[in-house]
C-alpha cells in the first residue's frame, strides 16, 4: 500500500509545477506596464518606479519566477497592494465562508445524486428513469447564478423567509449560519448534483451489464443485494473520479454564487481583486485553489486503492 501512496505523491510533483508555471505566466501576460495599470494614469513617475521596484518588475522574468517559487515554499504567496497585507492572510480571512458553502453544496449534491442515479439505473426505461433523466438534464443546463437569482426572488423577496444575501459565520449560531447558506448551497449543489447523478446512472448501467452481476443473480441473491453490494461498489470507482474532477467546477460555481449572494468568500476576493487589479492576490488565491484540486484528486486516488483491490495489488 505504501508503494502505491508514494508513487501517487511523486507523480503529483510535475503537476504542481505546471500549476505554478501556468499561474505565474497568466498574471505576467499583462501587456503594457502593470504599475501604471494598477496606480492609474495620474500616478507620478516616482510612485510608479517605487511600485515597479516593489513588484520586482525590473528583474528578468525567470529570476522573478524563482523568487516567487522560493517564497511559495516558505508559505509566502505575495503581498496584497490593495489590502496592504500578505496574500496568505487575505486568503485565510475569506476561507471560512467558501469552505462551508462548498462542503454544504457537495453534501447536498452527493446525497441526492447517488441514490437517484442508482435508482434510475435500476429502473432503466421506466417513467421514473425518464423523469430522472429530464431533471438531471435540466440540472446541468441551468446556470447556478440564475438559480440563485430566482431563489432570492422567491424566498427572500416574495416569501421573505430567508435573507436575500449576506453571511453569518458559524460563531454566530449554527441556525443563523444555515439561514444564510441554504440558498447559495442549493443553487451551487444543483449543477454539481446533476453532473454526479448522470455519471452515477451511466456507471451503474455499465456495471449492471457485467457478467459477475449475472453470476450474483444466478446465486439467488435478492435484487437489492445485487445492486447495493455487488454493483454499487464497482460503479463507485468512476463516480469517485467525477466527484474529484468536478471539484474544479464546484469552486468555479462558488465564485459566481458568492457574488450573487454577497458572501465574503474566496470567490468574492478573487472577483474584487480582478476589478482592483490586485495581481498578487489573484495569483495567490488561484494557485491555492488549483493546489487544493490536486490534493483532492490525490485523496480520490487513494480511495481507489481502498475500493478496488486490483489497484492495491498491481504486482505484475
Amino acid at each position: 500500500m505504501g508503494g502505491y501512496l508514494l508513487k501517487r505523491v511523486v507523480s503529483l510533483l510535475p503537476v504542481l509545477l505546471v500549476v505554478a508555471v501556468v499561474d505565474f505566466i497568466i498574471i505576467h501576460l499583462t501587456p503594457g506596464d502593470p504599475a501604471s495599470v494598477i496606480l492609474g494614469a495620474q500616478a507620478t513617475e516616482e510612485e510608479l518606479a517605487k511600485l515597479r521596484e516593489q513588484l520586482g518588475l525590473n528583474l528578468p522574468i525567470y529570476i522573478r519566477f524563482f523568487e516567487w517559487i522560493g517564497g511559495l515554499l516558505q508559505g509566502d504567496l505575495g503581498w496584497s497592494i490593495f489590502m496592504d497585507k500578505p496574500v496568505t492572510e487575505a486568503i485565510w480571512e475569506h476561507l471560512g465562508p467558501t469552505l462551508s458553502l462548498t462542503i454544504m453544496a457537495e453534501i447536498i449534491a452527493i446525497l441526492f445524486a447517488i441514490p437517484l442515479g442508482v435508482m434510475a439505473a435500476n429502473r432503466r426505461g421506466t417513467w421514473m428513469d425518464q423523469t430522472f433523466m429530464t431533471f438531471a438534464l435540466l440540472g446541468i443546463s441551468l446556470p447556478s447564478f440564475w438559480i440563485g437569482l430566482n431563489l432570492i426572488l422567491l424566498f427572500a423577496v416574495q416569501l421573505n423567509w430567508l435573507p436575500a444575501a449576506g453571511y453569518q459565520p458559524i460563531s454566530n449560531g449554527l441556525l443563523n449560519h444555515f439561514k444564510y447558506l441554504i440558498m447559495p448551497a442549493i443553487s451551487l449543489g444543483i449543477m454539481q448534483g446533476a453532473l454526479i447523478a448522470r455519471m452515477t446512472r451511466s456507471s451503474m448501467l455499465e456495471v449492471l451489464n457485467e457478467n459477475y452481476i449475472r453470476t450474483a443473480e444466478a446465486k439467488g441473491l435478492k435484487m437489492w443485494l445485487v445492486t447495493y453490494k455487488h454493483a454499487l461498489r464497482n460503479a463507485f470507482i468512476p463516480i469517485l473520479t467525477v466527484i474529484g474532477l468536478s471539484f474544479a467546477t464546484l469552486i468555479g460555481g462558488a465564485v459566481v454564487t458568492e457574488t450573487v449572494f454577497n458572501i465574503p468568500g474566496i470567490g468574492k476576493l478573487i472577483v474584487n481583486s480582478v476589478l482592483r487589479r490586485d495581481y498578487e492576490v489573484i495569483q495567490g488565491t488561484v494557485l491555492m485553489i488549483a493546489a487544493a484540486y490536486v490534493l483532492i484528486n490525490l485523496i480520490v486516488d487513494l480511495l481507489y486503492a481502498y475500493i478496488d483491490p486490483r489497484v492495491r495489488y498491481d504486482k505484475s
Partner: protein
Amino acid sequence: METSSVTIATSQPVAPSRHHVRVAMNRFFANRLAVSGSILVLFITLICVLAPLLTSYDPLEMKVQDRLKPPSTSHWFGTDEFGRDVFTRVVYGSRISMGVGFSVVVITSIVGLLFGLYSAYYRRLDNFLMRINDGLMAFPAILLAIAILAALGPKMSNVIIALSVVYIPTVARAIRSVAITVREQTYIEAIHALGGKSWRVIWLHIAPNCLSPLIVQATFIFAYAVITEASLSFLGAGTPPPEPSWGNILNDGRTIMKQAWWMTVFPGLSIMITVLGLNLLGDGLRDLLDPHTNRAKK
C-alpha cells in the same frame, strides 16, 4: 464462438442497405433526444442570424422616458433602466453567446484532437503533455478565464482565447482516452505490419475513429462555454457593457430585480434553452455515435 451474453450474434449482414446516409438519417430521427436538441439549437441559431429582422429597435439606443417598462406589445420583454428594449438586447446577446461558444468549440476541437492524438500515439510525448493537461485542469474554468481576462483585458476575442485555454485539456483528455483504445485495436497493428507510416496510422486510422466521441464532446463543450461566458459577463469580467450579452443583461437586472423581474427572467431563459438544447443534442449524439454505451444505456 458462442457468446453466452444475450446479444444475438446475427451471423448474416442484417440489412445490407446501400445508402448508409439514409440509414444514419433514420436512426437520427428516431432518437428523441437528438431531434429535440437540434430543434432548440437551430431555433437559437436562427435568432442569432435573423436578429436584425426580428426587432426594429437598436440594442444600444437609450430612451430614458421608456425606462423600466414591463413587457408589452411594443416591448415584448419590457425595457431596462436606460429604456433599452430588453428583447432586442437578448436577441443580439445570442450572437455573443453562440459566437463565443462556436469559436471555442472549433479551437478546442482542433487543438484538443491534435494533443489527444499525438499524446496517445507517442508514449514519450504523452507523459509531458498529460502533466500539462492535468496542471491546466486544476484551475476551475471560470477562475482561469477571469485570470486570463484580467491580464489581457475584457474583449470578446480574449474571452474566446480564455475559454479555449480552459477547455482544450478536457477535449485532449477525452480524445486521448479514445485514441488509446483505438491504438490497441488489431487493425492498427495490421497497418504497421503492412508498412504503414505513422502519419497514415494516426490520420487515416486513429483520427477517423475519434471523430464520433469528438463530436459528442464538442457539443458538451459548447454548452459549458455558453454557461461560462454568461457567468463571466455576469461577474463583469466577460464581454464589457454596453455590448449586450446574456450575462451582463442579467447583471444589470440583478440590483433592480424586485421592480424589474423581466430583466433577469428572459436572459436566464435564453441561456437555459440554448444550454438545454446543446445537452440534449450531446446526449442524443452519444447514443447514436457511440455504439458501446448505447447498448448499455438501452
